[in-house]
């Protein structure tokens, strides 16, 4: 019977062409949306690496340029490049930051305070890389103070966080995530090893004198949140002293559960009293998360709506085309009934034909989407997410096809054979 149906569908290819094309394009659009959804879900299911609950970010704007060389949070520059040890006195901004942190700790509502250059869910990004330009290992970087893991609940999987024991060391202590450890060191233990670039240009030769040394490893730190793909990350120690290579641009506060927004004002007033020329803006990380996630999900929701509308159109179109198809084949259906087909068999045959037609469209659809990774149009999406998206899209299109075919094929079984044979 399958051979018979294949032959029938093939011989009617001109009539079935439109349905095939409709299914092909529906699959492509649906695949795009499903791929994005599966990608987000896959990312969401992976560990975030930090706890955003009861964490507040205080964005710091140092308006008085004399106090320090303020740098923008968004940067692609190499912040790992060492600075020449300074003999100068502690810069005023470092003193102010120390005062701010001390003031924050005085509040009962604040359990912990830390500085950082890159905040979770924030817009800013610092990146660097190891290796030559042809094959660099890229990673995100944040310079943070020693208390940062307590404020954001980071968990070490190996080693320790940097702290006072690193004062005066002839290396720069860094904490990296497992992913970066795997990329740089493979299965080897990274602890105590230097995170070095093999081919340093001469101007960065000094890096060899104060190399970055891995003192600890964390499981994960996904700075842009749960919907972004996990990436390599590295924390460097932020020193608030005369060797301060880069000023922090934010303070992270860990507040007691139940602390209300009214407390924000109290903190800002206190901070403002310490640094009159600076401006502060407090935002709970949960709110930043909400904003960032909405921003990330918006295209998916829009795409989903478009795809949903398209699927509805396709469903209506398919039902209509099939209805017409069944009506045009009333005599054939009557003939098949006369020759021994049961109503159930006719029902199944029409659905089977539809599935075959859909399969033709889907074969072309799958052949088209497997070109996407080769053409590099979908970015760095892993093969598991890609394959799962294909499977889900196929299942949805097949389900849609069958649902659309149910009513017309059921109608076909309602026609009495004698009536069908004389249908005009």
């Amino acid at each position, binding site marked *: 019977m399958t051979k018979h149906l294949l032959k029938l569908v093939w011989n009617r290819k001109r009539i079935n062409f439109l349905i095939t094309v409709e299914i092909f394009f529906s699959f492509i659009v649906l695949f795009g949306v499903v791929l994005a959804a599966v990608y987000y879900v896959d990312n969401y299911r992976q560990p975030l690496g930090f706890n955003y609950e009861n964490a507040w970010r205080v964005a710091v704007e140092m308006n008085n340029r004399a106090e320090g060389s303020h740098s923008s949070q968004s940067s692609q520059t190499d912040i790992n490049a060492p600075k020449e040890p300074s003999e100068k006195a502690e810069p005023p901004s470092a003193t102010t930051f120390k005062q701010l942190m001390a003031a924050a700790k005085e509040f009962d509502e604040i359990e912990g305070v830390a500085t950082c250059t890159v905040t979770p869910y924030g817009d800013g990004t610092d990146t660097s890389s190891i290796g030559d330009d042809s094959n660099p290992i890229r990673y995100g970087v944040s310079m943070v103070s020693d208390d940062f893991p307590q404020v954001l609940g980071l968990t070490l999987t190996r080693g320790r966080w940097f702290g006072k024991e690193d004062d005066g060391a002839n290396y720069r202590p860094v904490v990296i995530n497992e992913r970066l450890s795997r990329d740089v060191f493979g299965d080897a233990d990274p602890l105590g090893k230097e995170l070095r670039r093999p081919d340093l240009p001469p101007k960065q030769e000094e890096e060899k004198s104060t190399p970055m040394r891995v003192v600890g490893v964390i499981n994960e730190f996904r700075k842009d949140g749960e919907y972004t793909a996990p990436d390599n990350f590295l924390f460097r120690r932020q020193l608030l002293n005369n060797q301060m290579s880069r000023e922090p641009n934010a303070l992270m506060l860990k507040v007691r559960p139940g602390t209300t927004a009214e407390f924000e004002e109290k903190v800002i007033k206190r901070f403002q009293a310490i640094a009159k020329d600076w401006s502060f803006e407090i935002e709970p990380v949960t709110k930043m998360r909400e904003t960032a996630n909405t921003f990330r999900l918006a295209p998916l929701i829009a795409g989903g709506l478009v795809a949903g509308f398209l699927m509805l159109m396709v469903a209506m179109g398919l039902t209509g085309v099939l209805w017409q198809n069944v009506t045009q084949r009333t005599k054939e259906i009557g003939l098949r009934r006369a*020759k021994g087909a049961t109503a159930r068999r006719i029902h199944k045959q029409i659905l089977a034909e539809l599935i075959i037609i859909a399969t033709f469209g889907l074969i072309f659809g799958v052949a088209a989407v497997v070109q996407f990774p080769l053409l590099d149009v979908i970015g760095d999406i892993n093969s598991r997410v890609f394959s799962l998206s294909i499977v889900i899209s196929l299942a949805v299109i097949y389900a849609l096809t069958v649902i659309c075919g149910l009513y017309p094929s059921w109608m076909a079984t309602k026609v009495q054979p004698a009536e069908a044979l004389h249908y005009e």
Partner: protein
Amino acid sequence: MIQLEGIEKVYRTERIETVALTNINMNVGEGEFISIMGPSGSGKSTLLNVIGLLDVPTGGKVALNSKPVTSYSDRNLARVRNEEIGFVFQTFHLINDLNVVDNVEIPLLYRKGISSGERRKLALRALDRVGLHARVHHFPGQLSGGQQQRVAIARAIVGNPRILLADEPTGNLDSQMGDEIMDVLRGLNENEKTTVVMVTHDPRQAEKTERVVRLFDGRQVS
């Protein structure tokens, strides 16, 4: 072989009630070749559809081989239609998108336990029996009316049914082709003892059958 007892058929719509058959009593013996005649609208095709289990009578009983089939389920009716009865229609009812041999195979698709190779063999044999072995890969549109009707007959007999029901099989053919088709039907009746019930308008063709049943306004008049 075929027993009809008090067959009534009434078509009802919301406004109109049309009586198609009234009190038809008829017996067709095994191996008989009978024709049903009557003017248009006299109920000939309706009667044939009732005999062929394509239509359900409003009243009365239909029995095949002394087994009442009126209350059969859709599945059993389909089985009987597939195994016991072959149909030939005035307009051939060939599927234009299938070639000759694929058209002939259709009844065997609905029969269990026949492999595709066996189906093909039986279809070719049926085509041979109607003298169309040279046209097996042609499509219906490439054949003459007479050839198309031969294909339809091959399709009707491919499953070796004991009853062949023909609804004006020569109605769309010229007299020469009509005669050829009648020869095929007679051959099947005489050589293979197939029971043939044929509806026809043509007295010339009706004369070639053993018995003529005449209908007028849904009633059996002879």
